[in-house]
């Protein structure tokens, strides 16, 4: 009797041990399987990320060779006034940026005199920063490209007039802005020949120049518009009326009374 009972208990124990060993083996096998599946999934995901990265890189044309408008200062500047003027004012601006419009309006009443008498040279650095605020028409890029085109075919004086007309007719952000036709008619009003300028504006011939200029400015750490430099010294961000006062003080310090 007792020996039978013992052996039955032993048998149960042995069976339990066997089940435990089997269960451990199953868990181990399951772990191995999970590791393999995780590895496979992660590999596929890594390939997807690599593919997406390649697509994004190929869509970024920054730095590709661009046609540069004739008459630029440096590579991306549009100059106005005497090259030997004692004061150079550099203005980074976007034709859609409202503060740039305020700045231009405030400068218009006094700066042109100093440009005419040879005290000041202005270098406009047009930047297409605000493309996402023109309902998909890329107003900033279109105007920068058109500005380059007017400089290219008609020279700095007519380009400057076109620049002023663009700010006088500045559209609000989050509107489509002026159409290409309207840009052409402003260019013609500024003095450009319509037959020459129309294909350049409609073809956005200087779009790549605009893209490269924006990237170059970002490398110069220009992160907002308007950004102003007087004789190469960058002014810190400040309210527009203060900015205008700073520029005026610098100019009047040099101007002969």
């Amino acid at each position, binding site marked *: 009797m007792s020996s039978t009972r013992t052996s039955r208990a032993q048998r149960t124990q042995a069976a339990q041990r066997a089940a435990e060993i089997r269960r451990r083996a199953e868990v181990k096998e*399951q772990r191995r399987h*999970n590791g393999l599946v995780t590895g496979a999934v992660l590999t596929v995901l890594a390939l997807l*990320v690599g593919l997406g990265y390649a697509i*994004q890189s190929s869509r*970024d044309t920054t730095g590709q060779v661009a046609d540069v408008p004739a008459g630029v200062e440096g590579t991306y500047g549009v100059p106005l006034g005497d090259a030997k003027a004692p004061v150079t004012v550099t203005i980074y601006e976007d034709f859609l940026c409202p503060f740039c419009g305020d700045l231009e309006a405030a400068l218009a009443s006094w700066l042109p005199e100093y440009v005419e008498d040879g005290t000041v040279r202005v270098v406009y650095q047009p930047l297409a*920063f605000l493309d*996402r605020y023109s309902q998909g028409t890329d107003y900033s890029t279109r105007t920068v490209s058109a500005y380059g085109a007017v400089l290219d075919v008609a020279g700095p004086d007519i380009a400057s007039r076109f620049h002023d007309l663009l700010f006088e007719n500045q559209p609000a952000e989050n509107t489509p802005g002026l159409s290409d036709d309207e840009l052409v008619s402003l260019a013609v009003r500024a003095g450009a020949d319509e037959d020459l300028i129309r294909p350049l504006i409609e073809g956005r011939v200087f779009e790549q120049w605009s893209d490269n200029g*924006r990237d170059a400015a*970002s*490398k110069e750490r220009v992160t907002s518009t308007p950004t102003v430099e007087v004789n190469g010294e960058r002014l810190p961000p400040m309210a527009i009326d203060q900015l205008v006062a700073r520029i005026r003080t610098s100019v009047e310090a040099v101007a002969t009374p």
Partner: protein
Amino acid sequence: MSWLALVARATLGGVWVAAGLLKLPDPTENVRAVRAYQLLPEALVPVIGHGLPVLELVVGVCLLMGLVVRPMALLSGVMLVAFIVGISAAWARGLSIECGCFGGGGGPSVGASDKYPWELARDAGLLLASGLLVVRPRTPFALDDRLFPALEPAAER
């Protein structure tokens, strides 16, 4: 607890998908946004600008589907730590830049330093959610349940 983790997974996934999708249309803008932080060497700037949005989208979609949740939550946490470091560094150095978190960035920014605290708080919250999912990757309605039947259901849940 598993339901809290599910909420964390859905929120985190949605945020990553939105962040990735909003950045995809303009790769040059992403590059400028990364550059504006003035933290990385120029050679790395385009790599991050082009790669990050794709990575965000993949992490987001995987989290929403519940696919390999633990590794994705880990990646999510690593990215968020990097963002927190980046924004804090910009704030500390007095840079006035757009976050660029959901597209944009590299361009004009008004009142940037007023936005930094809220951006940091948001990222800290998302980091917490990522941490929760690293510790408890098992949630209801996840693809992982199909791929990886629980070893010890009672212990895992």
